[in-house]
């Protein structure tokens, strides 16, 4: 045993010495980057595409010659662990990445609970954390200099959604949502605030839990209150049941939502007729009808590489990798995480970005490490989500608000 350990240690030392003593001009090296995300379980619909997106971006960067840091070229190597969107699993995954694999740059993070758990200790680590799809606001109000997030917080979108619904002239809006999930609740809070400013009101807040599939009791209650419109906030599947059962109960008012589900996901629960006319008020994520050249190329490459269409939110993770690449190149180091984190904060929007970010003071991330995309109103028309219009959003004002929450 002891002899074996000694031999191993010696081997490691020799290898390390050999590696560091080689001449260093334009040498090809490997930089490990970590991914912690939900690869199985209910949240894998968000997490797995994010992991794929990171892999795809890394492969693209490697094919183009890698990340050029000073004299060296680094090839990216992705090490991914499944955190099942579970706080404990995510903590273990990130600890393993940092302590065992020696990773300094960790990406992915689709879901708020697991992300918040990691964010709670990442400030003390010699590492940089890049958050993707997780929407809970508090993740970027912790004042962490080594954390950035590509997806805007839910309430940033909720405020824009409330204004949109008020502008359409709806006064009495009934809410049915997964309100025990805090980022959904914050979406509704912000929605209500701007709806009120526009002269409307939220007449009731009904909730459902993650496992509920029978929403008829809540919908029956809502029907009895004669609302002008319905707002549905929650995961795709329960939301699809709500849309379906609202039709079955004869609730004939406009249905607005915040779900970011794909057509296939909704059609496995509700029929095309039951979905007709439903609105989704959300960040302008990847939707072929609204997307840029980068988005179209992303969709094509992803579909070819993985044999399935990318989920709308997956580019948040793809964009993380390019942001990291540019920050590493600008900082001129892979070891000094503080310098890289600082470079991330100062980064303009990368040319390769797929999401349509709105810069704050010319930068991708604001002082809180938060990025902002535009928000959009999508409507279900004849079997497809159709981009109808931008939702007016003010990232600068929101950024100041976010800074005030520290």
């Amino acid at each position: 045993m002891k002899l074996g350990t000694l031999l191993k240690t010696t081997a490691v030392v020799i290898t390390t010495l050999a590696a560091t003593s080689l001449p260093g001009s334009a040498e090809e090296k490997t930089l490990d980057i970590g991914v912690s995300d939900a690869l199985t379980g209910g949240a894998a619909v968000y997490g797995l595409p994010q992991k794929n997106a990171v892999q795809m971006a890394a492969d693209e960067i490697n094919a183009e010659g890698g990340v050029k840091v000073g004299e060296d070229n680094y090839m990216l190597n992705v090490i991914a662990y499944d955190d099942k969107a579970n706080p404990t699993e995510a903590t273990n995954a990130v600890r393993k990445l940092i302590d065992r694999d020696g990773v300094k740059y960790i990406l992915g993070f689709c879901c708020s609970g697991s992300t918040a758990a990691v964010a709670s200790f990442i400030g003390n680590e010699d590492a940089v954390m890049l958050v993707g799809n997780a929407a809970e606001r508090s993740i970027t109000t912790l004042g962490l200099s080594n954390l950035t997030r590509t997806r805007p917080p839910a309430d940033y979108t909720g405020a824009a959604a409330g204004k949109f619904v008020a502008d359409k002239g709806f006064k009495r809006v009934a809410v049915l949502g997964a309100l025990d999930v805090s980022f959904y609740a914050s979406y509704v809070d912000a929605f209500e605030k701007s709806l009120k400013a526009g002269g409307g009101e939220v007449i009731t807040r009904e909730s459902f839990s993650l496992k509920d599939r029978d929403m008829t009791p809540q919908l029956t209650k809502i029907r009895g209150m004669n609302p002008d419109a319905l707002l549905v906030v929650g995961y795709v599947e329960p939301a699809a049941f709500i849309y379906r059962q609202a039709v079955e109960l004869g609730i004939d008012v406009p249905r607005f939502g915040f779900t970011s589900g794909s057509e296939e996901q909704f059609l496995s629960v509700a029929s095309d007729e039951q979905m007709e006319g439903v609105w989704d008020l959300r960040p302008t994520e990847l939707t072929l009808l609204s997307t840029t050249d980068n988005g179209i190329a992303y969709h094509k490459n992803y579909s070819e590489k993985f044999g399935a269409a990318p989920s709308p939110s997956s580019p948040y993770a793809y964009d993380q990798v390019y942001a990291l690449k540019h920050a590493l190149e600008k900082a001129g180091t892979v070891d000094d995480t503080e310098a890289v984190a600082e470079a991330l904060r100062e980064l303009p929007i990368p040319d390769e970005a797929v999401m349509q970010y709105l810069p704050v003071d010319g930068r991708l991330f604001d002082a809180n490490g938060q990025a902002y995309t535009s928000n959009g109103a999508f409507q279900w028309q004849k079997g497809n989500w159709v981009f109808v219009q931008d939702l007016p959003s003010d990232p600068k004002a929101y950024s100041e608000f976010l800074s005030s929450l520290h």
Partner: protein
Amino acid sequence: MSRFWESNGNMIEIIQQIINGLAIGGVYVLIALGLTMVFGILGIAHFAHGSVSMFGGYLTFFLSSSLGLPLALAILIALIVGIVLGIAIELLAYRPVRNANHINAFIVALGLTMMVEGINLQFFGADQVIIQTNFDRVFEIGGVTVPELRLYVILAAIALIGAMTVFVEKTKTGQAIRAVAQNRDAAILMGINVNTIPLIVFAISTMLGVCAGVMVGSLFAIAPGVGEGLVIKGFAVLILGGLGSIPGAVVGGLVLGVTEALAAGFISSAYKDVIAFAVMIIVLLVRPQGLLGKA
């Protein structure tokens, strides 16, 4: 009369909530009937029942959606497979421990639950599945709406309960089942074959479970864990209605389903399970033997 309904929104809402609750109540009844028969005859708490009924739902989904068979044929095949499965469970899992300590059957039941859940996961995957039907019309009567699918679920539940009752009350086999339930030794003396009765009971129980699985799969969705939740509700119904009582299972299931709907609609959906179980506890305080159980 109709003016009364229309002028009284609250009344419509209450009736709507009751209709909402009847469909899920019907599913609870079918699950509880299967459990109550097995418990009444064999004294076994058959925890795997929920997972077995989900197996039936998964199988129906697989046959109708993946293989493209007509829904009725898919259900029929699932029922036959379910009956075979039920018989196999009795023969291979419960019969060997029939004369052993009660705890043995209890452990077998728990093990079986995990096994069937595992089989479901292995065969059908972890994704949620929904059995597609074309029943998406909606009927409206005086402000109360009844979706076509829910109506069929309620009618099917009534038909199954009726058939069950006739079978148990009117046929010779049914009499034998009741005799074994009342007094096993006396039933043996009367010449009843106590080896075939459990097989029949398991066949019927599993068949009812498969029907419940198909209903859950078409009304809502089947996913890992749904069966376990259902079996807990089934046992709650059993205790609420009275252990081993068939009419008790019917009344208990409907009471639970409607209570849940009313609680979610008028109080809070977050507490609907809490309220439903609180009602159950109150009933048991007043009537320890359950609503229709014999003291």
